[in-house]
């Protein structure tokens, strides 16, 4: 490290810096100073036309391979992904990058840094397409509780819509059905419930359209048959909107006393809010 300090002080961007920084990063990839210096060196060699020549066998492509190998061994590190982003942005070429992130998802399907990088890729290269949607379908097929994949799906489906523009009706319909299928499989999974409510808001579809769907999981009149606290939560809103205070209160009381007592203060707050005509969520999201 003290050797690197000397190199940096001399503003040396010669090929030997690549070997030196690689050695330090291998030991400790959280070393933010070293990543920055390595990137500047690569850029300097590139500008001088030296990358991939006899003098410097190293190329951007080898750099990306090497970065991936470091990422595989240090899944929690985020400097790696920023370095990768700087390079891919500079190259203006996303070839192979989806496959690389998917290789990382195979190790940890909820890796926050990798998902953030993937979203950057989608935005940078306008990849709001069928392939991207198919990734989320596949990953949710493997783990329907993966909230990161749900979040990404929302991003892919609605992220390219200009502000204020309504999504196509068939897209809204398709996503409602997708979430309903997930809820059928895992009624107590919070992610598709958040998702379906958000899709309804995006499509300007009333929550009340979910009433019979929710009642099949959580019939308020028959507490022994209740399978989903989330369905009760949604039903309390639907009943409240419809002016059925007694049923709304019953749903929230069941949550406070029986189905989610750890949050009883929250549910009792919701009960006190009934009839206030303020939707639980405004239509901003």
């Amino acid at each position, binding site marked *: *490290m*003290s050797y690197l*300090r000397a190199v940096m002080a001399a503003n040396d961007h010669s090929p030997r810096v690549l070997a030196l920084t690689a050695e330090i990063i291998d*030991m*400790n990839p*959280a*070393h*933010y*100073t070293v*990543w*920055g210096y390595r*990137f*500047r060196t690569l850029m300097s060699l590139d500008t001088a036309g030296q990358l991939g020549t006899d003098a410097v066998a190293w190329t951007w492509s080898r750099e990306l391979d090497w970065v991936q190998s470091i990422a595989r061994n240090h899944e929690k590190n*985020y400097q790696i992904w*920023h370095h990768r982003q*700087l390079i891919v942005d500079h190259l203006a070429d996303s070839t192979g990058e989806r496959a690389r992130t998917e290789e990382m998802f195979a190790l940890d399907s*909820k890796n*926050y840094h990798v*998902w*953030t990088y993937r*979203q*950057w890729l989608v*935005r940078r290269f306008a990849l709001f397409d069928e392939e991207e949607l198919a990734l989320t379908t596949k990953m949710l097929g493997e783990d329907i*509780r*993966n*909230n*990161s994949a749900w*979040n*990404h799906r*929302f*991003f892919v489906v609605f*992220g390219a819509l200009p502000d204020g523009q309504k999504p196509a009706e068939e897209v809204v319909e398709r996503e409602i059905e997708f979430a309903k299928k997930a809820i059928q499989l895992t009624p107590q*999974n*919070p*992610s598709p419930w*958040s*998702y379906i*409510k*958000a899709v309804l*808001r995006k499509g300007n579809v009333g929550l009340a359209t979910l009433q019979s769907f929710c009642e099949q999981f959580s019939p308020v009149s028959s507490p022994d048959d209740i399978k989903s606290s989330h369905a009760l939560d949604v039903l309390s809103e639907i009943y409240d909107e419809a002016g059925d205070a007694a049923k709304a209160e019953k749903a929230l009381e069941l949550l406070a006393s029986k189905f989610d007592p*750890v*949050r009883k*203060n*929250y549910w009792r*707050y919701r009960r006190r*809010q009934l009839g206030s005509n*303020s*939707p*639980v*969520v*405004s239509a*901003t*999201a």
Partner: protein
Amino acid sequence: MATAVAFTNKPEELFVDKHVKYIQTLDTRKDELEYWLTEHLRLSGVYWGLTALHLLGHPGALPRDETIKFVQSCQHENGGFGAHPSHDAHLLYTLSAIQILAMVDALDAVDTEACVSYVRGLQKPSGVFAGDEWGEEDTRFVYTAIQTLKILGRLDAIDVGRAVEYVLGCQNYDGGFGLVPGAESHSGQIFTCLGVLSMTDSMDRLTPASKDQLAGWLAQRQLPNGGLNGRPEKLEDVCYSWWVMSSLAMLGKLHWIDRNKLVGFILSCQDEVRGGLADRKGDAVDVFHTVFGIAGLCLVGWGGLKEVDPVYCMPVETTKRLFGAK
């Protein structure tokens, strides 16, 4: 690194003296590899340790003069601070430096004008801040930039309005906030975003309904074992005792989680022999989880601890001195 840990079987006790001793000896472990592998975050390590000591009621347990000297040695010519004298300046360590000096009441020990200019230089046209000249741009750095300037009384040096707009653009369909626009809601990012809104008097930019949705999401982070997670369907971790609870405190909804269950979980993560807290029972302790576990206990009013400010993660004694009584 993987030292055997003796986890407590007496989850009703906080081992204050053990924790003080653990933090005091952190800097004497220079023969351990881990000490050198954490050099890139040393200044934050000092902030975490010092904050924990203040909250435990032992503010003088680290030598004040040496602490100030170390902070001074980390300032660069550009005004920012590195994690260690041999590391480049970075916003994360710049905030740690300023927080440390605020806690020991020695802000005049460094060149604060240079620091203001360093922070200002990292704001981007979108309002976001970069962590350093080459680094990532996200809500963590909006928070660190704004707290640094707030302590120095120089929020006028940046475009606060754009920073707030950037943060608001990170709110998701489930009510939470992510690292950048579109990124998944995460309790740590919710803390930084609510912190920015609080420090800039912009909490009213969230509607009452949106605040309720967010607080409800945060309350959902509590698991049956009492611990809190950072995202749906993830494991509990002591550090979320801070990120989730401080956020709930900023929303005035601390009572939406089960206090006793959370206290039991935090206390079960103590190493009762060496001191310190781990992310969860059975793992090795570190100073990061130690401070956030203790700060979480402060928020739920555990007896004998000092009051913590949920926005700044510093003792209320310090923020009162800086900003006056609220």
